């Protein structure tokens, strides 16, 4: 079974996925390209957390 930390990471991706899906349902263009998803994920799962860590 995944560790507690791994569950936390998975939960973070699940939240990122829920937002991506919510946008995608109403603006389907973002669902058409892997590279858009990659850019989105890099922003929400790397750049934003890194920025927040730097601020606090």
């Amino acid at each position, binding site marked *: 079974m*995944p560790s507690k930390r*791994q569950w936390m990471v*998975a939960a973070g*991706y699940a939240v*990122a*996925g829920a937002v*991506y*899906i919510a946008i*995608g*349902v109403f603006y*389907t263009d973002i*669902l*058409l390209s*892997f590279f858009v*998803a*990659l850019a989105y*994920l*890099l922003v929400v*799962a*790397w750049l934003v957390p*890194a920025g927040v860590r730097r601020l606090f």
Partner: protein
Amino acid sequence: MPLLLGSYAPDVMSKWFVYGIHIGGWDLKATDPVQFHRGWPGVGFTHSLLYGVVWALIFWRVFGSKTWALSFMIGQWAHAITDTGDTVGTMLFFPWTIHIHFGAWAYAGQTGRLTDAAAYFSGPGAVWDLVWIVLGIFSWRVLTRSYFEQHVFPADAFWSKANRFVPMTALLVAYRAAFFYGTCRWIAWSIWAHVVHHYPYDISWGGPHWVNAAHSPSLTWPQLAGVFGIVATGVAIFFVSRREFGRRSWAAIRSRLKLA
């Protein structure tokens, strides 16, 4: 990375022209999307086994990477073989231009991107994608940081080169992006098709039957015999080369250990 690129390779330059795009005052779209996408004349050769072999040879002999060569070819073959599941199929044995097709789900690329998506995520294609998502969830360990650092990162020089410019955390996110994208697009298109627009599910063979699907003609008996001959030859070559490789490897090991 090469596996992912290989899996996208067949459609990367063609799908936009199949669906059509609008740039300024120009509408660019293939006059016969099915012929363009899967046929010859057209770019249907991108869905053939030979196309993967040519790219593999380029990666191996020009760029010197067997890992990229083999991985790219596996990804491209996976796409080309998977697309034989629809009603048009692929010219798997190009330059032989017959279409290998099992007709499990409807090909509806010619209807435009939205109807195509609605059809795909209403039929057996959606079930097929779901199988891989479930398999990915059961194989969750391959998505962990430790697996990436111990197995993926050392196996492909791309990652270490990229690591000169971006940190490991970003690479890990990029590595996970393919599964993230595949899973999210499946859920999003399913919601779009069935909750927002109420397209009916039809997971019967060849479905959904509410869409105007394109079809390739059935293979004749001589064509089937030809396909069987090609596949049998390929399997025979694979096993003979494997046996030969095994015999040589064993001889090398015995020689090294001075057993004979």
